[in-house]
């Protein structure tokens, strides 16, 4: 394995409060040194990062890779490649596969598929309950032993408060968070979008913000009761942010995440019955979007995740009520975060790296998220100013369901390195791969 010397980039490492133009040397799969005058090791690959940002590889705590079960939509390999192209060195795969990732063999399968792919790291998330049925706890000990980093029944809320309580208590033994999809199913039943003026005009059944907030409040109370670590998935409402802010002030072990679509779009995107704007939780109102942005600024919401949810174009090419929820996000997340949040004046680049790398690593207790010497050589080189236009046809993901097609963004990954090896290099237009 050749050493890699990344020269002259703006190195941002929130784990050590580093933000300076300097060089970074990677050797034997680890970060070796940071600084000027590191010398050039024999055979080292030189990367000119002038004008670029060099950061620990991005980490996405929430993706759906569809394998096993729906390999026509995505596989571990195609998802890991899409992740690498988006600047992610690691992603966490939700367990709503078919069969459900609720046992050690299923977890081991995903780990081995990820190793075979050799792109971004893929960490499985195990199910909370067998079959995600919300009844019997899965074997957390065996899931963790096989490589699971968290548990979640994502896609479905944990309806039973008793089950959520026992999950939070039992997960403490293994030091893993319980990630919950917060949705009161009786309030959300049949809903296709956010309940508000747009749903009223379109004649679609709405999901009120309270459907999410009720479960956020419950989960916070249960975190207090149990001392367990609850991680609240894809927060979308102002009320959720307020509840989390109070829980954090009390010092509870409550972490949370938000998606680019929720800090970029509102329910207006559903106009014309655009099924690529159909997701769960739904796109909300401008006040909710502002609250999510503010929460990402002040750290009330810890991390940016994608909720990458591949669907076949046929599945979205139908009546709004019948179309499935979700959009892909791995290859647009960084560009949206830079364009909307950094260029939008909400956060600076070091905060962005914290929300997309350093903090996610801490929240799920993962390797990476740091450029400290001896840390894994998981690195991303970002061109923060590169203008580009979203064209789903160029994506590495097997699916194309994005509401951002044609959108002009700034900022994207040029080079993604995992375990000291380049897993993605952007080929300049009309040119050969950069060295």
């Amino acid at each position, binding site marked *: 394995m050749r050493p890699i010397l990344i020269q002259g980039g703006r190195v941002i490492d929130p784990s050590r409060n580093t933000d300076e133009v300097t060089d970074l040397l990677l050797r034997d799969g680890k970060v070796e040194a940071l600084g000027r005058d590191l010398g050039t090791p024999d055979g080292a690959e030189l990367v000119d990062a002038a004008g670029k940002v060099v950061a620990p590889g991005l980490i996405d705590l929430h993706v759906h890779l569809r394998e096993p079960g729906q390999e026509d939509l995505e596989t571990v390999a195609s998802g890991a490649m899409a992740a690498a192209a988006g600047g992610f060195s690691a992603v966490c795969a939700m367990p709503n596969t078919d069969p459900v990732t609720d046992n050690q063999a299923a977890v081991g399968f995903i780990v081995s598929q990820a190793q075979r792919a050799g792109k971004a790291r893929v960490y499985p998330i195990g199910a909370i309950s067998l079959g995600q049925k919300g009844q019997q706890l899965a074997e957390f000990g065996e899931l963790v032993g096989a490589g699971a980093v968290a548990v979640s029944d994502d896609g479905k809320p944990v309806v039973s408060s008793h089950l959520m309580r026992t999950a939070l208590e039992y997960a403490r033994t293994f030091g893993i968070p319980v990630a919950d999809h917060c949705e009161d199913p009786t309030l959300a039943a049949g809903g296709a979008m956010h*309940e*508000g*003026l747009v749903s*009223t005009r379109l004649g679609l059944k709405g999901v009120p913000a309270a459907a999410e907030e009720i479960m956020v409040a419950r989960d916070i109370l249960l975190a207090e009761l149990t001392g367990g670590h609850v991680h609240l998935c894809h927060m979308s409402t102002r009320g959720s942010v307020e509840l989390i802010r109070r829980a954090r002030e009390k010092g509870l072990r409550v972490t949370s995440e938000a998606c680019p679509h929720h800090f970029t779009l509102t329910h207006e995107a559903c106009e014309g019955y655009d099924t690529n704007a159909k997701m769960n939780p739904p796109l909300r109102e401008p006040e909710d979007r502002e609250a999510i942005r503010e929460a990402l600024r002040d750290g009330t919401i810890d991390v940016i995740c994608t909720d990458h949810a591949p669907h076949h174009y046929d599945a979205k090419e139908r*009546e*709004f*009520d*019948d179309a499935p929820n979700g959009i892909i996000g791995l290859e647009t997340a960084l560009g949206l975060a830079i364009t909307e949040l950094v260029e939008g004046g909400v956060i600076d680049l070091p905060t962005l790296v914290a929300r997309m790398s350093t903090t996610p690593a801490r929240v799920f207790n993962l390797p990476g998220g740091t450029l400290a010497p001896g840390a894994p050589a998981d690195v991303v080189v970002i061109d923060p100013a590169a203008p580009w236009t979203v064209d789903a046809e160029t994506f590495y993901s097997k699916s194309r369901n994005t509401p951002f097609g044609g959108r002009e963004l700034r900022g994207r990954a040029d080079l993604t390195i995992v375990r000291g090896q380049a897993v993605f290099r952007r080929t300049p237009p009309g040119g050969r791969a950069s060295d």
Partner: protein
Amino acid sequence: MSAPSLGKDLVGLEPLSADQIRLILDTAEPFKEVSERPIKKVPALRGKTIVNLFFEPSTRTRISFEFAEKRLSADTVNVATAGSSVSKGETLVDTARNLEAMRIDMVVIRHGSSGAAQFLGHRIRSNVINAGDGKHEHPTQALLDILTLRDRFRKIEGLKVAICGDILHSRVARSNIWGLTKLGAQVAVCGPATLLPRNVHELGVTVLPRIEDAIQWADALNVLRLQLERMHAGFLPSLREYNRVFGVTTERLAKAPRDLLILHPGPMNRGVEIDSDVADGPHSVILPQVTNGVAVRMAVLYLLAGGSPDWSQQTGGVD
């Protein structure tokens, strides 16, 4: 003189201008007379093929469209499919492509999903007419309601119309709100809070919580059909209570400061949202609404097929 046209499809009244709505109403006027002739037929759509694609059960609307088409000399086919297309296996987009391949000129669609008419209209070259899509719009029903109001009051501007009942699930309510407000009417909605949609006041309507308020305020009441399944879904405690609290009854109407015109899109639940003596009474225009329905649908079909508003001056067919 260049009259406004309707464009390719009629998916709702929200996208239409006041001029476009008036064009339809004005075009419907001479078509009323066609239905009074001994030979109820004009050659306006001779040679045109129209499919009536009904994914939901409907008697009144389907028959009304079919008469309108036949009186315009179009060739028509009725396709009635229970349940949504998804449960049948074929997707709506495949249905659309098949219709396209058969080179039909127009599709009249009734579907349980909001947005289905627009979905179809964006995918085929044929004209698409929305005969009711989910909880979204039912534009021809609102047009016939407005035509009936105009017949009685001579003008819509300044008129006070209260739409009463299940606004939340009603496509008739939404289309009436758009059509009436665009023409300058004042619109109120009245019903149990469980059956009023969120932010409905932002559509430019007044919310009246009690039927007594609506009766005091309005020139006309448009009384919506209460879908009986709403009670089972927990929106209402009972039909008896609905009639007691929200029913349009003779006793309540007796307290009105003026004679109220009573509309109902049908089919009625007598004794639930409306009492029989009101429905059959002197101020009810429920049957004139049905008559106007054929004329309005003839006007819409004719205009979308490219006809000009002064058809009655023409002697031959239109192509």
